[in-house]
């Protein structure tokens, strides 16, 4: 359902055609990276560290080299050492360790052999001598005075290189006088929260096939959120020129941020170069969980002050994000993501803190979910303390155009108020919770980003069109590109073939991340189509024998007062013009490349009714509604899908999912049996309300919808548990044992 109608009406935008790539995906033909096999292909496997932190004293591969089927072995020594200030330094020492292993499961060597079993057997025959180092696992431990270093090569960003540190980043943000405002507030609530590491949990493990030829050029087929990113990072890690690598995007089996970096491709490229044969490298699920992803864990202290009539006057927050063994930027975003309320006084600091755990990666609105869990929980406690409706309290303080984010940036036109009002008017909120259930709600914000995109649109001889972009389709973006092109050109959406092209067939395009594909790549598609419409009118004028300024493009055809469009001849359709392309100036094609500005901030409000079993501590979601401002929903089904998928990932984060480490840093639950993501029987339907407050910076008003949906669920459910039990849960996941313990302590 759509709560606020877009003022404009469109023929194609906002409709729900079957996606173009769907057919291959329901008959088993869609080709994911692991589905590809090349003639003469070898299979590779990794030797990974059995220790969470150790110096590598020596590596002896001689026994492994003599094993049957072994064709090539690589270690960190086969790659150049990048300077500590190089932006790809950390990823280069993550793909294969150099001298030191930084987490359990850190790759040390890789073997290519005729079969995977032979490669694995050879890995087991590699002899490594280790010198164990202290293992740093906790945030408090890492930040303590005199703490051992988790990574001797980490320097605090924007400060170093000076002294090595367990701190990746420190981000203080301040406006007004939070201390004075707290002292004057009628009510102040402060709580401490913690969040376990969680994994993105894409069902397709990382995979690639690489064929490095005798000319030194590498052909890479890979599953990623951005094949230009794979090319750039692989080239940097290999010490190659970018043009030596061609990356063809395979279908991607889920990413959610976790496939915005590189693990396999440079390793496979070097193995292939050494062996002279193609190499296939596929992670197991255990490797995915031990050695890729996860999202940071966190500790947060949030204090909020308010007047007795519910005006939020100040926030004072301390946030520490555990970013893994490398100096990731994740810690910076926590404080920056505070943007939903006016907060005249604000004092926030967020930290990125290292530990001997896997290098963290982005996960849908990275770092915002942790902060929202804490802040929206405290705000809920303020509402109940003041006996105010939780929507009314939020409406009273909701940010609108011109209000400042924590970073001090004024919001453009945003739709938070519209989202809150849509929930308030919804059937869900207007109905009483079912017998035994109680309700919670929370708000989420995400920036969304623009970045660089390219698109080429080719008009074919028969009047069909090919729309070529460089944005991997991670959940329906081919369909949204085709819909926008159909709207622009005025032809049927199925006359358009949307293509995701390789790095040599389309202009540079940044990663599918930051909810940017439909916004930024869509903008490039629209620009290319608009350029084509000008050219189509020029060709039509030639054919009609009229001046160019006498021709306009209306409903997929050129019309001119003197030739069609009312008097005399028929309008010239796109197909009629392309059929005569040869004699009017040649092929009709246009390319647009841009660095998109004006990404539209996105807000969501979620509402959950839950039942808590006081004997087991189990929380059951009985009803769930997600409201989100999409700007404009190009293909509403896939907008709903993003909202529903984000909600359920958040439900898993709220109730089940967590990385459990042993005291020596070994992940104890590296499989889907024990790292339990939600299954169909855990859930109700996820109701959706799409709010459309168009983004003025996109031709159709798109904001991007991929990420915001994961921000509200944890607080939504925590607030519902509080409503059901009276107990405030402050630790994620709110798993049955933790809820039971909290219930027992409250008795």
């Amino acid at each position, binding site marked *: 359902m759509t709560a606020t109608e877009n003022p404009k009406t469109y023929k194609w935008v906002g409709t729900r055609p079957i996606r173009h790539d769907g057919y291959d995906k329901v*008959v088993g033909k869609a080709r994911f990276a692991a589905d590809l096999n090349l003639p003469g292909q070898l299979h590779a496997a990794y030797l990974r560290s059995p220790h969470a932190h150790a110096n590598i004293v020596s590596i002896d591969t001689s026994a492994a080299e003599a094993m049957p089927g072994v064709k090539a072995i690589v270690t960190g020594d086969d790659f150049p050492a990048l300077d500590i200030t190089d932006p790809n330094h950390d990823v280069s020492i993550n793909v294969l360790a150099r001298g030191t292993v930084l987490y359990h499961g850190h790759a040390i060597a890789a073997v290519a052999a005729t079969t995977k079993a032979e490669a694995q057997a050879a890995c087991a025959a590699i002899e490594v001598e280790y010198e164990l180092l202290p293992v740093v696992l906790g945030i408090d431990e890492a930040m303590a005075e005199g703490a051992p270093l988790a990574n001797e090569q980490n320097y605090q960003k924007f400060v170093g290189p000076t002294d090595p540190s367990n701190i990746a980043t420190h981000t203080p943000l301040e406006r007004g006088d939070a201390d004075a405002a707290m002292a004057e507030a009628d009510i102040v609530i402060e709580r401490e929260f913690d969040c376990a590491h969680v994994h993105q949990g894409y*069902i397709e493990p990382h995979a690639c096939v690489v064929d490095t030829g005798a000319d030194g050029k590498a052909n890479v087929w890979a599953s990623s959120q951005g094949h230009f990113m794979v090319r750039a990072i692989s080239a940097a890690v290999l010490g190659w020129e970018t043009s030596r690598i061609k990356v063809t995007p395979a279908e991607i089996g889920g990413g959610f941020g976790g496939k915005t970096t590189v693990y396999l491709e440079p390793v496979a490229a070097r193995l292939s170069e050494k062996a002279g044969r193609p190499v296939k490298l596929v992670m197991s*699920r255990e490797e995915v969980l031990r050695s890729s992803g996860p999202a940071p864990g966190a500790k947060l202290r949030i204090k909020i002050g308010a007047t007795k009539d519910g005006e939020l006057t100040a926030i004072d927050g301390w946030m520490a994000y555990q970013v893994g063994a490398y100096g990731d930027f994740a810690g910076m975003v926590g404080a920056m993501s505070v943007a939903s309320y006016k907060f005249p006084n604000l004092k926030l600091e967020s930290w990125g803190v290292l530990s001997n755990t896997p290098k963290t990666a982005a996960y849908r609105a990275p770092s915002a979910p942790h902060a929202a869990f804490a802040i929206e929980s405290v705000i809920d406690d303020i509402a109940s303390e003041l006996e105010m409706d939780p929507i009314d309290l939020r409406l009273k303080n909701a940010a609108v155009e011109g209000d400042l984010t924590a970073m001090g940036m004024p919001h453009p036109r945003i739709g938070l108020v519209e989202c809150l009002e849509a929930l308030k008017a919804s059937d869900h909120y207007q109905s009483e919770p079912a017998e035994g259930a109680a309700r919670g709600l929370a708000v989420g914000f995400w920036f969304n980003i623009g970045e660089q995109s390219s698109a080429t649109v080719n008009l074919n001889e028969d009047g069909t069109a090919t729309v070529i972009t460089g944005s991997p389709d991670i959940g329906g973006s081919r369909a949204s590109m085709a819909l926008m092109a159909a709207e622009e050109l005025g032809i049927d959406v199925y006359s358009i073939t949307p293509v995701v092209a390789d790095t040599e067939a389309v202009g540079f395009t940044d990663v599918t991340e930051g909810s940017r594909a439909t916004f930024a790549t869509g903008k490039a598609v629209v620009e290319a189509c608009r350029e084509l419409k000008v050219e189509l009118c020029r060709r039509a004028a030639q054919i009609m024998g009229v001046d160019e300024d006498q021709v306009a493009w209306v409903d997929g055809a050129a019309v001119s007062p003197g030739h069609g469009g009312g008097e005399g001849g028929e309008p010239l359709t796109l197909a009629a013009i392309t059929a005569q392309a040869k004699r009017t100036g040649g092929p009709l094609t246009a390319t647009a490349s841009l660095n998109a500005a004006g990404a539209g901030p996105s807000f969501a409000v979620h509402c959950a009714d839950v039942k808590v079993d006081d004997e087991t501590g189990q929380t059951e979601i009985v009803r769930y509604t997600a409201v989100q401002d999409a700007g404009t929903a190009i293909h509403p089904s896939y907008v709903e*899908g993003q909202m529903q998928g984000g909600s359920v990932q958040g439900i898993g984060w709220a109730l089940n999912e967590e990385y459990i480490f042993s005291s020596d840093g070994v992940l104890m639950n590296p499989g889907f049996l024990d790292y339990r993501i939600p299954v169909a029987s855990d859930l109700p339907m996820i109701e959706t309300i799409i709010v459309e407050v168009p983004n003025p910076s996109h031709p159709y008003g798109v904001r991007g919808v991929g990420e915001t949906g994961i921000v509200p669920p944890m607080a939504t459910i925590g607030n519902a548990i509080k409503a059901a039990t009276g107990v405030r849960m402050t630790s994620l996941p709110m798993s049955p044992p933790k809820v039971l313990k909290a219930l027992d302590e409250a008795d």
Partner: protein
Amino acid sequence: MSRTHITCTVNGEATDFLANPATSLLDALRDELGLTGAKEGCGTGDCGACSVLMDGKVTCACLVFAPEAEGRDLLTVEGLSSGDGAEGDHLHPLQQTFLEGAALQCGVCTPGFLVAAKALLDNNPDPTETEIRYALAGNLCRCTGYDKIIRSVQEAAVQLRSAT
């Protein structure tokens, strides 16, 4: 290791292939027979992306050794449509409702869901929402939150019932 000769029926056709006794049925289907519709998401029977029907029963192909397929009747996602996998009328109602209902985003879990849903509807043409949710609880999807998958199975059940 010497390879075993295995004879079985795959998607209605008599088929034979060679495989090492320790090879999983999933690897044999994918690498020996070129049927890459079934995916390996975990290799431990936890995600259902490799689901195939073995004598009509949903089976994780990653948990079965290839020689166990001897004499069995296998159905993979490639055999679900009535024709050769071409578009349009040949699609199984589940494939059509998954497309129309936007029940897939990345699509990597889709083959497993389709096969598991077919087994459900073969045995229970009129399942409740709860029965569908439990029948598909062995198939993980990380993109959709399951909502559109469940609705598409419900719609396919309606279509299949009205067709008979």
